[in-house]
C-alpha cells in the first residue's frame, strides 16, 4: 500500500474528484503557484494537471474566496476552497457562518450549497497564535455546517471525497503536523461517510475521545498505559458535526471511564459538548468523573518551550487517566 502524508492524501482525493466531476474546482491563496513548491502540500501539481480554469489562485481576500464558493455552489458547481491558516477563518466567517450555513434554510430548502472549506490548522510550528488557533468549536456551533477533522491520511482521502460529494457546506480541517507523517493509504476510489467515528484502538478500561492531531498523542499514551495492563479504547471522531454519539456512548458503556482530548483551548471547546452528551445519555455508565485534556485557555505562544507547554501530550493524558482509574 502507498504511504502518504495527510496533505498528499488530500491531493489524491482532489485529483480523483476533479477527474470524476467537472463541476469540482479549487480556489485559494497559492493553490496553484505555492510559495513552498513542496509535494507534501495538498494542492501540489494540481495547476499543471487541471489548468488555471479549475485551479484558481486568488488574491489575499478571504471574504471573496468564501463568497466565490457560496455563489458558485448555489449554481451547482462544487467549489473546494482553501483557508491558509485556521485563524484566517475569521476573515471568511461572514460568508461561511451567515451565508453558506444559513441560505439553504432561508430558502425553505430550495437551494443547496455543496462546498468544502479546507483549512490548514494546528500548533507545533512556532508560528504563534495568529497562525495557530484551533477554532473547530466555532464552526461546530453553526447549524448548517458539517465539520470534519481527519487524523490519518487514509481517513483524509475518504472523508474529503465524501465532503466534496456532500450537498452541504463542509468545513474540512487539516492538521499540518500530519502533512509530514507518512501513513498507509489505499489506492482505490473509496469513501468514508461523514458522521461516523472510528475506534482506532480497542480497550476495556478507559475511553479516550479525540480527533485530528491528538490521535497520535492518544495512541502513544495508550501504549504506555498498556504496559501497566490498562487498556485504553480510542475513539477517533473524524467528524465533529454530525456527531457520532452512538460510538461514543457504546464505548463509555464498555469502559465506564471517559477522557476527551483535544488541542484546542478548554473553555467552550468541543470537549465540553462530548462531556454533556455523556452526562445526559450515559451518566449511569460512568464509574468515575470524566476528564478533559486540552490546550490551556491561552493563545498559542511562539517560543518552543511555551508552545510545548500549550500542546497536550501523552503525559497530560496519562496523568488524567490515573486520576480517574
Amino acid at each position: 500500500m502507498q504511504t502518504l502524508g495527510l496533505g498528499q492524501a488530500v491531493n489524491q482525493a482532489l485529483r480523483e474528484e476533479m477527474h470524476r466531476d467537472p463541476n469540482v474546482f479549487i480556489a485559494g491563496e497559492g493553490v496553484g503557484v505555492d510559495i513552498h513548491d513542496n509535494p507534501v502540500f495538498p494542492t501540489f501539481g494540481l495547476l499543471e494537471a487541471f489548468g488555471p480554469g479549475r485551479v484558481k489562485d486568488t488574491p489575499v481576500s478571504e471574504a471573496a474566496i468564501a463568497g466565490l464558493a457560496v455563489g458558485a455552489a448555489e449554481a451547482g458547481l462544487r467549489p473546494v476552497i482553501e483557508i491558509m491558516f485556521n485563524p484566517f477563518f475569521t476573515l471568511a466567517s461572514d460568508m461561511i457562518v451567515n451565508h453558506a450555513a444559513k441560505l439553504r434554510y432561508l430558502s425553505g430548502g430550495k437551494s443547496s450549497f455543496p462546498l468544502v472549506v479546507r483549512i490548514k490548522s494546528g500548533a507545533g510550528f512556532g508560528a504563534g497564535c495568529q497562525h495557530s488557533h484551533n477554532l473547530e468549536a466555532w464552526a461546530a456551533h453553526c447549524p448548517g455546517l458539517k465539520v470534519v477533522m481527519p487524523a490519518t491520511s487514509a481517513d483524509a482521502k475518504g472523508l474529503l471525497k465524501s465532503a466534496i460529494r456532500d450537498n452541504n457546506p463542509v468545513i474540512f480541517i487539516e492538521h499540518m503536523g500530519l502533512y509530514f507523517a507518512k501513513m498507509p493509504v489505499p489506492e482505490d476510489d473509496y469513501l468514508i461517510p461523514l458522521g461516523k467515528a472510528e475506534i482506532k484502538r480497542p480497550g476495556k478500561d478507559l475511553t479516550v475521545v479525540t480527533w485530528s492531531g491528538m490521535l497520535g498523542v492518544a495512541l502513544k499514551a495508550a501504549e504506555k498505559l498498556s504496559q501497566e495492563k490498562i487498556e485504553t479504547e480510542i475513539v477517533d471522531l473524524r467528524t465533529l458535526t454530525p456527531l457520532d454519539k452512538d460510538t461514543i456512548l457504546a464505548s463509555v458503556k464498555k469502559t465506564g471511564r471517559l477522557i476527551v482530548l483535544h488541542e484546542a483551548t478548554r473553555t467552550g471547546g468541543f470537549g465540553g459538548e462530548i462531556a454533556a452528551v455523556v452526562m445526559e445519555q450515559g451518566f449511569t455508565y460512568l464509574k468515575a468523573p470524566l476528564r478533559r485534556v486540552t490546550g490551556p485557555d491561552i493563545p498559542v505562544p511562539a517560543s518552543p518551550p511555551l508552545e510545548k507547554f500549550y500542546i497536550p501530550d501523552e503525559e497530560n493524558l496519562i496523568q488524567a487517566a490515573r486520576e480517574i482509574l
Partner: protein
Amino acid sequence: MEVSEKKKKEMLWTMILSRKFSDSLVSLCKTEGKIPGMMILSTGQEAVGSGVCAALEFDDVIITNHRSHHHLLAKGADPEKIMAEIYCKQTGCNKGKSGTLHLAVPEINAPCTSTVVGGSLPIAVGRAFAQQYRKETAVTVCFFGDGAADEGSFHEALNLAGLWQLPVVFVCENNVYAGAQRYDAHTRVKDVAERAESYGMPGMIVDGNHAPAVYAATLKARQRALDGEGPTLMECKTYRLRGHGESDPQHYQPKDEIKAWQAKNPISRLGKELVESGIITPAALQEMESKAENIVAEAVRFAEESPFPEAQDALEDLYA
C-alpha cells in the same frame, strides 16, 4: 439610446406594482398580529429594480439585499408567494423560514438575498464565476446600498470580479442614507462610482429615479459582461422616501429634502412621460393602478388565509 414603448410600459407596470405592494405593507405591518419582524420598504427606489430587471433575460441572476421587494417583483416573483412569506406563512416562497428580509426565489433566478450589509457582493462574484466557468450567455446583477460600499466585502468582491473579468453588474442603489447616516457622513468620495477605477472597471452614474435611464445603463453593462469585458459598477442616485424600516420616524431626514424627492417620484414621472407622449392614455394608467391594487389585495388575502407552518417544521430544510 431610444427605449421602446413596450419596455417603458413594462417598467411603469412593475414600478406601480412594487409601489402598491409597499404601500399596502405600510399599514399592514403596523397592525397587531399580522406581520412579524421588521419591515423594510423600497418606496421611492422602484426605478432601480424595474429599470435593471427590464434589461435582463430570464437566465440572468440577481442577488439582492434587505430592501428587495422591488427587485424581486420586477424580476417576476409571484406576489402571492412573496406576500405569504412576508406574513411568515407556510405557503410563502420560503415556507416562513425567511420572512420579509431574506426572500429567496431561485425559480426566477433570484436565489439569494443577504441582509448582512455587503453580503450580496461576494456571493454575486461566485454566481458570476459559475456563469463564466460554464460559458453561459447570462450575467449576474448584484444590488446593494451606499452603506455596503463601506464594507470590506464590497472591495474584495470588486477586486476579484475585476481581476477575473467576471460577468457581473454591481448596482449600487445610493438612496442617500445608510441607517440614519447621510451619505456624506459615511463616505469621503463624492460618488461610489469613483471606486470602480480602483478595481479596473467602468463606473457609471445613473439617474436612479428614471427607469429608462437605469434600463439603458444596465443594457450597456450587461452587454459588456457578455462580451467578456468584465464587470461594471453602476451607481443609481435615488432616495429612500421612507425610513430605514417602518419603525423609523425619519427624524434625521430633513422634511424639505423628502418633499423635494417626492416631487421626483419615479412612477408619476414615467407615467406622465408616457401619457404626454401618447404611449398610454390617462385611462390606461388608471387601469394599471387598479390592476396592481387588485393583485396586491389578492396577495394579502392569500397570505392572510394561509396557515402558519407547523412548529416542528422549524427542524426541516437545514441540510440537503
